[in-house]
């Protein structure tokens, strides 16, 4: 098999798109779990969901694809971007006035921000789940109590504000990503493409609002 790095430009884009769609699907599952934090049940549901995600074998199987997906998506994104920069060695003097999809121009930057966010996120949660760092709060003395971990993080206003900003940037990334994935896979249609574009906007707004409700809730309602 050819190394993925030697794939044609189009094939790289297919892989980017498929990995991206998978990640976008996962985000919905993640959101559903996060929303359990809003229940006034001392983290019963949230911890149950976290426990399920951490132990279920089907989830563990998909976890491999999740990490592969992130890795490939980031790697190909960077490679494609470097090639794109190299494709125009001399820049224009006048700034471009062409009509373009605004967010599409900043995908590498919004992508970078999302990547930084992922690193912070992994350090706060995933490392604890894997037992690489000592849990700050535990259930029954061993398993980390992610409800309390999350609550403690959101009790820090600075953390919450950074979280809100980063999630919003993720929303910008998703808005273009969602529709672009379809185009990259060759799915363009006079009737459905405008619907997909609208849906992309709705999806990205739902993700941003959904994830951000939680820090806002902890900032104002649970202080």
């Amino acid at each position, binding site marked *: 098999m050819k190394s993925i790095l030697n794939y*044609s*430009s*189009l*094939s*790289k*884009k*297919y892989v980017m798109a498929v990995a991206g769609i998978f990640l976008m699907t996962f985000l919905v599952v993640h959101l559903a779990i996060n929303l359990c934090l809003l229940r006034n049940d001392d983290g019963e549901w949230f911890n149950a969901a976290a426990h399920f995600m951490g132990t279920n074998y089907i989830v563990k199987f998909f976890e491999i694809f999740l990490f592969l997906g992130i890795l490939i998506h980031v790697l190909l994104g960077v490679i*494609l971007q470097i*090639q*794109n920069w*190299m*494709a*125009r*060695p*001399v*820049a*224009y*003097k*006048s*700034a*471009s*006035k*062409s*009509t*373009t*999809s605004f967010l*599409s*121009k900043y*995908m590498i930057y919004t992508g970078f921000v999302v990547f930084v966010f992922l690193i912070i996120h992994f350090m706060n949660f995933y490392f604890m789940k894997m037992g690489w760092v000592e849990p700050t709060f535990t259930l029954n003395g061993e398993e980390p109590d992610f409800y309390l971990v999350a609550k403690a993080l959101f009790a820090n206003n600075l953390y919450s504000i950074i979280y809100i900003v980063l999630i919003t940037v993720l929303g910008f990334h998703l808005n*273009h990503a969602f*529709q*672009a994935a379809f*185009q*990259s*896979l*060759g*799915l*363009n249609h*006079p009737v459905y*493409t405008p619907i997909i574009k609208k849906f992309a906007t709705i999806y990205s707004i739902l993700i941003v609002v959904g994830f951000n409700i939680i820090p806002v809730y902890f900032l104002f309602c649970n202080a």
Partner: protein
Amino acid sequence: MNLTLEIWRQESPKAKGKFETYKVQNISADCSFLEMLDILNESLIDKVQLPINFDHDCREGICGMCSLYINGRPHGPDDEVTTCQLHMRKFKDGDTITIEPWRSKAFPVIKDLMINRNAFDQIIQAGGYVSVTTGGVPDANSIPVNREDAELAMDAAACIGCGACVAACKNASAMLFVAAKVSQFALLPQGKIEAKDRVKAMVAKMDELGFGNCTNTYACEAECPKGISVSNIARMNREFLCANVK
């Protein structure tokens, strides 16, 4: 109209170029953009200076030879026209106009504003044709073509290969050009026979020549003087996927 022009001057492909400022006076608003440059060149010749090199041929918007990145847009501020069809009435008296060549690794500057678009020819040579055995002229309409496909193929075939898509794209990607050329054949029965080999060969050539990758920003569609739609890019994405899967 009196105008200030900032124009890219470059001796030769290897030379280091720079912007020079020129003033032109008493330009009629009904002048075409290239006529305005002709007037400037006449005045340079009168002063025994080297005229500015720029490409043009038909001056009717059909050959695709004229280029020029004018004030941040390929073919200037008007929509769906080539530079030769752009008129000075699109500018205001006293304007400063910045004129640059197409910028792309695959389109090296030959001199001043003139670039080498041979890369497009190479892509066409890679597969942008239909192989035919010569013989008697076949009957018209002997191969039925669905009306809708014929229209779409004609829309794609409107591409004049000027390279504005590459010039406009932030990634200097040639996707719209290649997609139009792939589409015009892929839609027609005569072209379907070699469709798989064609799309593979043309995409491989496009990658090899150092054009950027598409990130779906659609600046190409916005700047195409012939209004070629990015739905052609999606069609090429489909064609290429099918060609490689089967």
